[in-house]
């Protein structure tokens, strides 16, 4: 297991932090990723499509 996975797989404060700070979408996305046993090409493509570039965070809502 990699450190990053370990960090987020810890079902305690970290995941709750994500839920509070980034909302349910980010929370369910990471929980889903942690428990995906065999990702498919479609899963990988979905992950790439969901990633937001740095500039998109600077746009006003």
């Amino acid at each position, binding site marked *: 297991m990699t450190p*990053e996975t370990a*960090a987020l*797989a810890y079902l305690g404060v*970290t995941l709750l932090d994500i839920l509070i700070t980034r909302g349910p979408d980010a929370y369910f996305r990471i929980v889903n*990723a942690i428990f995906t046993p*065999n990702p498919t090409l479609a899963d990988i493509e979905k992950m*790439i499509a969901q*990633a937001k570039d740095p500039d998109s965070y*600077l746009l006003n809502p």
Partner: protein
Amino acid sequence: MKRDTGVLKVFGFFALLALGCVGILILQGCASTGDPIKDPILTNAYRSLNSLDTAYDVAWGSFADLYKQGLVKEETMTAARAMAWKYFNAWGKASKTLKAYASGTASGEQLESMLDLARAGLDELKAYLKEQAGDQLKVIELKKPPDWLA
């Protein structure tokens, strides 16, 4: 009476949270029964990339919020933005390498080296953002995994 309602709300929130986790576990378990191919390198890399993206989302999203509130200087933002793009491009390359690995056109070593670059990029970005924003920045810190998940 008012206090009891508050306790009930908190309890209800955690109960829903737990229910959501259990539901996902059950759904994932059902979904995985139809797919016999297991590759730990692929699975770990996929989880790592998702985790890196979430950690970036928390840190960069938090810093962007501070910037929008006028709490970050323009020159600081310029430097931070360059680091964020450096990380994001490294993450993108690692994701494409994962896709290539899944298709059989990239090796596990190539994938691991791309992941290392993305990790290094995020570490550099987080360190700079922390240095600039201090306690105002929200970040995810690494923790030891629970034994049942290792």
